[in-house]
Structure formats: C-alpha cells, structure tokens
C-alpha cells in the first residue's frame, strides 16, 4: 500500500463516519482513490490528503473546526471532499459544479458517473440506514416485516493504523 492510501482511508473514515473495516469491506477503497486522481488529478488529491494529515489530533475539539475550515470550507478542496463523501455513500461521482471548474480549470473526467456496478451496490448510504441498494443485497424473504437494523457507529472516530 502506498503512503497515500492510509491518509485516504483516514480522511474517508473522518468524512463518512464508517470505520476502516467498513470502508475496506466495500472492496472499493483503492478504486475511489484512483477515481479522485482520475477526475481532479493527483495534485489536488494530494492537497486534500495533506489537509487531512495536518488536522489537529483526534478527540480534540479543534479538529471538527479544522475539518470545516481547512477541508470542507476550503475553496479548492471543499467541493472535492463533498464529492468524495457522495462517492462513498452512493458509488456515484457527482460532477463538480461549473463554478468550481471555471475557477480551478475544467477536468474532462468530471461528469456524473457510476464508478462501477459494484460501486452502486456497495454505496454506504444503504448500510447507514439499515437497508440495501435497490436491486441488490436484498435482506431475505420477510425481512421487511421487522424493524430495520440500523448499525451502531462511534460518534467520534478514532484514526488507527491497523495494517
């Protein structure tokens, strides 16, 4: 694994509130890093990862504020980070706004697209709500008659290097 993969996982976990295990469990983590590189380019991706690495330590109050100001509220990186969240949640890259393209330069791959058939299936939004993507991962006959099992998740994420 490259030195970019760990910060990418860490950033993704911070933004989505899904654990490294959950993210790796989609089988798509490398694909999504490659998608970022493909759509916005390595430089902007590196800038995003650098912004994440520079965050104050986890569990500190300053961290949330720093995420808002240096990542989500950063003029260059904010839209990219939001696109990354949506990518993890839905498997779809949602085209960055024309305002972003006008300011930071158009990117030919920046169109709305589903990364791959399994990316749709592994969208985390379905897992978040204890459901399943329409057309895949059905929960079995009669499962719908019971209340949903909404997975618990840690309110504050810890960033661990486990591999």
């Amino acid at each position, binding site marked *: 694994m490259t030195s970019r993969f760990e910060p990418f996982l860490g950033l993704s976990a911070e933004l989505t509130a899904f654990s490294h295990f959950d993210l790796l469990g989609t089988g798509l983590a490398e694909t999504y890093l490659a998608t970022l590189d493909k759509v916005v380019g390595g430089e902007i991706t590196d800038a995003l990862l650098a912004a994440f690495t520079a965050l104050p330590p986890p569990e500190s109050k300053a961290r949330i504020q720093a995420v808002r100001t240096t990542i989500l509220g950063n003029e260059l990186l904010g839209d990219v980070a939001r696109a990354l969240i949506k990518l993890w949640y839905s498997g779809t890259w949602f085209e960055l706004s024309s305002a972003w393209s006008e300011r930071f330069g158009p990117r030919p791959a920046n169109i709305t697209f589903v990364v791959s*058939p399994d990316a749709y299936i592994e969208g985390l939004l379905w897992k978040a709500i204890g459901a399943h993507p329409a057309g895949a991962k059905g929960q079995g006959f009669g499962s719908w008659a019971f209340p949903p099992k909404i997975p618990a998740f840690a309110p504050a994420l810890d960033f661990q290097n*486990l591999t």
Partner: protein
Amino acid sequence: MDSYSIKTLDELKEFLYRAMQLEHATIPPYLTALYSIKPGANQDATQVLRVIVVEEMLHLTIAANILNAIGGKPDLVRPDFVARYPAALPDGETDFKVGIQAFGREALATFLKIERPAQRPEHLVGKGLIYRKTPPDITALASHPRHEDFHFYSIGEFYSAIAEGIKYLEAEAHGAGTTIFTGDGSRQITSEYYYSGGGELFPVTDLKSALEAIELIIEQGEGDGGGIYEDDDHELAHYYRFEELVKGRYYQKGDQPGQPTGPHLQVDWEGAYPIKENLKVEDIFEGSELREAAIAFNTRYGEFLQLLTRAFNGQPSLLLEAVPMMFEFRNMILELIRNPLPKHPGKNGSPTYQIPGGIKQPAVTRQAEVNA
C-alpha cells in the same frame, strides 16, 4: 451383517447426527468460495456455487427430517457439530482435507472430491471399513461413532450403512408389531418452508420416504452412477456442475460423463480475493477491527445454528427467520474477505467458523406474519 452395522436405534440416531454434521460441513467451504469471487467475475461459477449451497442446506434439512422421523432430536449446537477446518473426509483408503479457501483450481479440486467419493475397486468390494488414525485436532467427518478410527470407504458407503440400518431396525420393529418411525409429524420440515431449486422437501414418515430421502442426498451429490442427468428433469448432480467449471463447458442432454458438449463458459481463476486458507481468530492481529468482525460473525453463525435447532425441534416456521440471517452472512463474509489481513501481506481475511459454545437464543423480534 458385520460388526460395524447399525444395530440399535440410538446408534442410528448418532449416525444421522453425523450425516447432518457432514452435510453442514460442506456449507462453509462452498459459501466462502462463493463470496470470495470478485464482483463481475465468474458469473457461471457464482450460479453453480449458489445452487449447490442451497442444495446442501436442503440435504441438511432432509437429514434432520429423517432423524425427527425416528424420534431423534437434531442438535446443531452440540460442541462438535461444526467441523474444525481443515476437516477430513473419507476418500477410499486415504482421506482428504476440506478447508476454507477462496474460489480457484485448488478449491474446485477439493469440491470434486467431496461430490464424487471414491468407488471401491473390485478386490475391495465387501471388505469392511478402513482403519486410519485421525489426529485428535482434526474433525473426521463420516466416521463410525463406535469405532472412531474406522472410516467408511466413501460418503456413499456411509449413507448406505444408514439405509441398511434403517431397513434392519424397521424390519426388527415390524417383527415386534411396531415401527421405528414414531416421530411427531409436526416436526417435519416441508417445502413450504424451503424452496429455491434443488428439489422438493418432503416429510419422512416411513421406510419408503426415509430411503427416498437418502437417495436424493446421494444422487444430488455424486449422481446415480448412470447418466449425468438424473431423469426427465435433467438436473445435473453437483459433481458434474463443478466439472463444467473445470472443463469450461456446459453439459447438455445426451452427453457422456467427462465430455460436456454444451456452450462454453468462462472461468477467471484469478477472479477471487486472496483469502488466507483456514484462518483462525487467533491468527488475526489482536485489537484489529477484522478480528472483532470475525468473532462477531462466529457469534452470529452460532445464533443461526441455535435457531435452526429450534426450527428442527418442533418450530418449523422459525426457518423463515433463518432466511434473513443467511443474507446477513453474505454481507458479513464479503466484508471479512475484502479486508486485508494485518501482518499477512497479500492475504485477506475470512470467516473462521469457530463457533463458540453457550450461544444464547438469538433475539427474535417477532415471528414472521406469514406463519399462519
């Protein structure tokens, strides 16, 4: 009538318990291989494995039906029920090991062995069991309950011994004006609780239906030794389905064994995640999320066996609640298999199927409404 024949009802019950253990033992390897296949790869293999897993569940249920028919109590939570992998299966005068591994050539070679047990060569016909010491930490499937170091020549012979035992005991009971089929009919699992390929599930109530049930298990596994298609339904036995994958070609009606002439199919032997074979929880880095997930899976699997045990002991409708659990396993296994195994570069995680004892009944929210 040799000294290894089944002579008492209690012995027959133990044999049927071992039949259930054997049928269940194929499910974790098949299930793991199935879910190890990468998305988009090996569509044909996925179908074959899916159908076979479903049929193995059917066989497990049939074995439970026979056991219930003679007044036994299926127990899937007995500590030795789930095999420790790799587990040994009889293969002529030797044995072979069934393990948890990814889909690939090796896995298929094992699956073919499971599904077509050795045939006795002529000079051994009529000779008894095979003596072979199995190491204490290995589960020896389809072994003789009274003679643990004596093994049946094949799975087929193991089932033949059960069929003979049933006939013998029923004849004996008949002579005394009674029957061994004294089980409560309401404990039988019927097809309304079970379908999706793989034949009908019928209640076992007498000698005839018991022998038919055993026949079905053997036929779906190894085929009946004749043509590759069973009858007009032309359903392929498991052995030939796996062989289609090895040969890269489907069978069609009129084909001879070993020579499928149907349409070609593609197998991508690399199209599976590189899981570590026969992984144990102890091998997973302590404190890692993967280890926690492996343990969580085992606990849930134990709850599943607990639920099945209750379903097989007079509450058939609980099988409907087992269905969503099977689907839950798919998601859990996929996550385990896609996560890298810490400190084992190039290898991924896997379910370990080490089922803890003392699992409590799963929290059943409410019976499905469809029971009525």
